[in-house]
C-alpha cells in the first residue's frame, strides 16, 4: 500500500450449475455447506466459484450473500452469481450511481464443473472442527447444545431475522440454553425492531445484541467454556475459535439454529413446527 499499487493474481474458475427448488427450511447456508462438504475446505483454493443455473431463481439476495460469503471457506477468492431479476430488483432499491452488468464469456474456460440438485439438499450442519465436515440433519443424532448464536456477516441479514422470528414466535428456549441474536447491521436491527421480531426474540428468551462480530471469533459475548457446544450461523468452526480449545462449534442455518435453541439439541425446524 505504501507504493499505491496492489498485486493481483488472476484466479481460475470453477462452475457450479444449480438446478431444482430447495426444500422448505433449506436456504443459502445449507447449500453452501453442502458444496464445501463436496469439494473440501481447499477445494477452490485461490479460485473463483461461479454459481449459475435455473436453480438460482429460487435464491434470495440474502441466500446468495451467505453463499458468496462462505465460498471463502472452500478456499475461494470469491463467489459470484450472474445478474438476474432478483439482483436487479435489489440494486434498483440501493444503487446511488449508474451501474454496469457484467457476465461470464460464452466461451469462458472452467477448471471444473459441478452440477447440484437443490431439491436433494437437506438442512445441513457442519460438525467440529472444519466447515467441510457436514451431515444432513437426519444423520446428526442426539447432540445437546449449550448455546446458539444467530447472526454474523454470514447469517445476520433481514431474511435470517425473519426466519428466526418465525420459528421462535410463541415458543421458549430450552432450559439452560443461551440464545444470542445479532442483527448484522443497524438497518437490519431497525427492520427487526419495526417488524416486532426483537420482541419475539426477547420473549423467547434470547439476548439481542447490537451488530458485532462478537462471539464468532471468540471476541466477546458467549465465549465458550471447556466442553461446551454451540450451534452458530457463523462461517468457521475451527478448534478454539469461539472460546476454549475443547469447546465445539456446529455450523448451521438460522432455521436449524433457532429450532435447536428451542429443543436444546440439534433438530430439524420441521420438528419444532410439529411440536416437540
Amino acid at each position: 500500500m505504501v507504493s499505491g499499487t496492489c498485486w493481483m493474481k488472476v484466479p481460475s474458475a470453477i462452475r457450479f450449475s444449480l438446478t431444482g427448488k430447495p426444500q422448505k427450511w433449506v436456504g443459502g447456508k445449507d447449500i453452501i455447506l453442502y458444496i464445501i462438504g463436496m469439494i473440501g475446505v481447499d477445494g477452490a483454493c485461490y479460485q473463483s466459484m461461479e454459481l449459475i443455473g435455473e436453480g438460482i431463481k429460487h435464491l434470495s439476495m440474502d441466500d446468495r450473500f451467505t453463499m458468496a460469503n462462505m465460498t471463502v471457506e472452500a478456499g475461494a477468492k470469491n463467489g459470484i452469481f450472474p445478474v438476474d431479476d432478483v439482483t436487479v430488483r435489489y440494486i434498483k432499491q440501493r444503487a446511488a450511481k449508474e451501474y454496469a452488468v457484467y457476465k461470464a464469456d460464452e466461451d469462458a474456460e472452467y477448471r471444473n464443473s459441478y452440477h447440484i440438485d437443490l431439491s436433494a439438499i437437506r438442512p445441513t450442519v457442519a460438525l467440529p472442527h472444519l466447515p467441510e465436515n457436514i451431515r444432513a440433519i437426519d444423520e446428526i443424532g442426539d447432540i445437546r447444545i449449550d448455546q446458539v448464536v444467530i447472526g454474523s456477516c454470514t447469517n445476520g441479514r433481514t431474511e435470517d431475522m425473519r426466519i428466526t422470528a418465525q420459528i421462535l414466535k410463541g415458543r421458549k428456549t430450552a432450559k439452560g440454553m443461551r440464545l444470542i441474536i445479532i442483527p448484522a447491521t443497524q438497518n437490519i436491527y431497525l427492520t427487526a425492531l419495526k417488524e416486532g421480531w426483537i420482541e419475539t426474540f426477547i420473549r423467547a428468551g434470547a439476548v439481542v445484541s447490537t451488530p458485532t462480530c462478537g462471539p464468532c471469533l471468540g471476541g466477546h459475548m458467549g465465549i465458550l467454556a471447556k466442553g461446551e457446544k454451540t450451534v452458530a450461523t457463523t462461517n468457521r468452526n475451527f478448534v478454539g475459535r469461539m472460546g476454549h480449545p475443547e469447546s465445539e462449534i456446529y455450523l448451521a442455518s438460522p432455521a436449524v439454529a433457532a429450532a435447536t435453541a428451542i429443543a436444546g439439541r440439534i433438530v430439524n425446524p420441521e420438528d419444532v413446527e410439529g411440536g416437540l
Partner: protein
Amino acid sequence: MKIRGTAFKYGDNVDTDVIIPARHLNSSDHEELSKHCMEDIDKCFSDKVKEGDFIVAGSNFGCGSSREHAPIAIKAAGISCVIAYSFARIFYRNAINIGLPILECKEAVKNIDYGDELYNLNLQRANYQ
C-alpha cells in the same frame, strides 16, 4: 541467504485461529503475538522455537480469517520459512505482503519430520538439504 533451523511439523488445514487465537488479538505487539503462536495445537511451540526455525505443514496452511496477525506472529516467533503442500489464499497474500517467506514443496513436506534439522535452505534457489 542460507538458513538453518529445526522443523516444527503439522498436518493439513492449519487455520489462523490456531496460528494466533483471537483472544490474543487485542494486542498488535509482534512479540506479544509470537508468545501465543500455535498455542492451541502445540503448547511447546513458543518455548522451543528459535531464530531460523521452520514450520512444515500439509495442504491449505493458514485457512480461515484474514487476520494479518497470523503471518506476523509466525515471523515474530523467528520462523525463517513456512514450507507446505499448499497455502490458503489470504494467508498466502498476507505472508508475501508482510515479508514472511513461504514455500510450496511437496517433496520437502513428505521427507521432513517434526524436530528434523534443516540446513542450507536457499530461498533464492529454492532448494534445501
